[in-house]
């Protein structure tokens, strides 16, 4: 074989081996680190796995936000106006988190059906709704104020 061509063959082999290592890394990293999104009605229907990281999105139920007196623990409910799921979170909430607004909570569902959230995302301006929440409401057939469409 022509030496340049031979070298090119080795190069291609090297790139393939390296790329396979990378793909291996990607698959390994993906296994533990993707979390599926569920709307509240699917969680209530028992479709969401217990004890695995998931994300839950909906509107924060008016009047459901309760703070603990001695810590930063907070409880509220997320709804798609068909069903609602209680969420418990300890920490500081994002500025735009509010009752009657859209939010996405990521965390683990416990056996009582409460989502123990490790992160809360709220929409970041008034014109913007997290796409998953918009989609979940679309499916449940309500608009963001809870009126049937």
């Amino acid at each position: 074989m022509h030496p340049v061509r031979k070298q090119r063959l080795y190069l291609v082999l090297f790139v393939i081996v390296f790329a396979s290592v990378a793909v291996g890394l990607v698959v390994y990293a993906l296994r533990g680190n993707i979390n599926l999104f569920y709307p509240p009605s699917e969680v209530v229907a028992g479709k969401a796995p217990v004890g695995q990281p998931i994300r839950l999105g909906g509107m924060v139920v008016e009047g459901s936000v309760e703070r603990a007196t001695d810590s930063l623990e907070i409880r509220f409910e997320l709804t798609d106006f068909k069903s609602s799921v209680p969420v418990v979170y300890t920490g500081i909430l994002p500025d735009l988190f509010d009752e009657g607004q859209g939010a996405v909570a990521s965390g683990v569902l416990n056996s009582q059906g409460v989502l123990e959230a490790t992160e809360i995302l709220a929409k970041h301006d008034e014109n913007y709704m997290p796409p998953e929440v918009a989609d979940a409401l679309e499916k449940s057939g309500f608009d963001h104020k809870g009126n049937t469409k």
Partner: protein
Amino acid sequence: MIPEIGHFALILAFCLALLLAVLPAWGAWRGNSVAMALAPTLAIGLLVFVGISFACLSSAFLQDDFSVALVASHSNSLLPPIYKFCAVWGNHEGSLMLWALILSLWTAAVALFSPQLPLLVLSRVLSVMGAIAVGFLSFSLLTSNPFTRLLPGIPADGSDLNPLLQDPGLIIHPPLLYMGYVGFSVAFAFAIAALLGGRLDASWARWSRPWTNIAWAFLSLGIMLGSWWAYYELGWGGWWFWDPVENASFMPWLAGTALIHSLAATEKRGLFKSWTVLLAIFAFSLSLLGTFLVRSGVLTSVHAFATDPARGMFILVFLAVVVGGSLTLYALRAPAVSSRVGFAWVSRESLLLCNNVVFLVAALTVLFGTLFPLIVDALGMGKVSVGPPYFNAVFVPLMALLVPVMGLGPVSRWKGDTVRRWRAQMVMPVLVAVVCGVTLPLLHAPYNVWVALAVLLSAWLLLGLVQDVLQRVRGASSTAHGLRRLTAGYCGMVVAHLGFAFCIIGIVATSQYSVEHDLKMHPGDAREMAGYEFRFIEVSEVRGPNFIADQAHFEVTRNGEFVASMHPQKRRYLASGSVMTEAAIDAGFFRDLYVAMGEPVGEGGAWAMRLHYKPLVRWMWLGAILMAVGAFTAALDKRYRRTRESVHSANKAVLHGA
């Protein structure tokens, strides 16, 4: 009246871009030097008219012309003037105007500062840039006209700029980022011009290199500012979230990093030619993809503006045309430009190749992680999100693989080197690096293995550079003389690699050593953290130009000695009623102290507070600045500025040849 002038100027700019895309390219094809010679004039005309249009839009913002829809929805009469100006690009339509303005700036810069470029090449390059301008200006005119009027029914006041964006970071972050994004269009245009001409040689790489370096430097600065802005403005002390839009700016950076290194091999040794061209196409395509991700709102991101599917579609089609067209051209013409030069395995070429593979794979894994949710959604398998753990798990090992090669790079020789020479060169650096890696982390208890590894790798990088500089200086009559003999290109490389070492230490140390507490505090409470005592004194109300705020007062002491007085705020903006956290940061070279207010909780004036101790966090931004400085320095190298005489002879030769 002024907005209409702006609109008209934008239409004229579009027509000029159309002429620029067509005429010089036709001239280059038919060998018509009159048509080719029009290219620089058209490029400058494009800049003038886009500039007029942008100025008109800015004046509408500065004069509170709320009859313009864009101004009414993104500005407010209470807004300080500087933010009125920034509001121009704090929205979809205006940021596209900024894109167009910067693109025409780059186009005009190529036209003005390329006296060494043969006319044939220049006309092709400017034509390609004109074609890109056609795409963006028609996007602006057809789907996102910034000059739309609200008639009748002019609102009395505007609905304000998103408070998150009312910040000095926004003044410079988007323009710098766009300078980088759009700057890769120059590298792209050079690559396409080379494919069209079928001539790809060392001089091509030499023309393309300074532009690529400058674009890359701007992109580095833009990303760094974005990270810094997120750190102090979002109020949770994070500096990188692997958010889709951050990734959108990071992927072109990774591809661009591969590109500037492969350009080095192409210029010096005539190697990897077709590969370099492919990387240039890839880098610019990723920039466009980034624009698509940001503008279409297909992914959940903190950067998404309220969106419109038609816009997403337009960019997607544009992206398909650019990527499809350039790859087709590549497939047709790349065999004509490929190289037949060999190199030994133990050589600088191999090391640069490793760099390219690592950066490209890194770019692809980030791309995959960013698009994975879209793929899964399109397949109807549910909505997933790919979180930071994925990116960290993939990205960190790749970078760790890179550094050993990177330390060796500067001391290695082109074409062929020997393992024995490498060993002789690197014995001292290895020993010293191991000693540093083992001992330096002892300064901060408890001992942390990851920090030790980071110190080891950075020390290896740093000492490899020192070794090489010493080597080069040693031959000269005096040290000063030796230092003066180093070229700007070489110094730039040293500074940029040094910056990378800073980044590694900063990122690893701050990730490993940071302490963070969210807690409930009453006025008078104190909290000890990492040797600092944070005492919460009181909360008072303060008024800003367009907001009112609760401001907390913290006194920080260390071993009884006063360190800092900190004043985080919780602001309520008057026009929009939105609430914003303004963190207080006591910055230092070795550590940052960070206090942010949560919300009032319970009785007795208690607040949720977030306290952070972040060691060496500044090092990573410092590192990014050094990288940018390095790239700017390298772009100033003398060899990129040949004399005019040699150009004229080259011009004749090329025209003759064509």
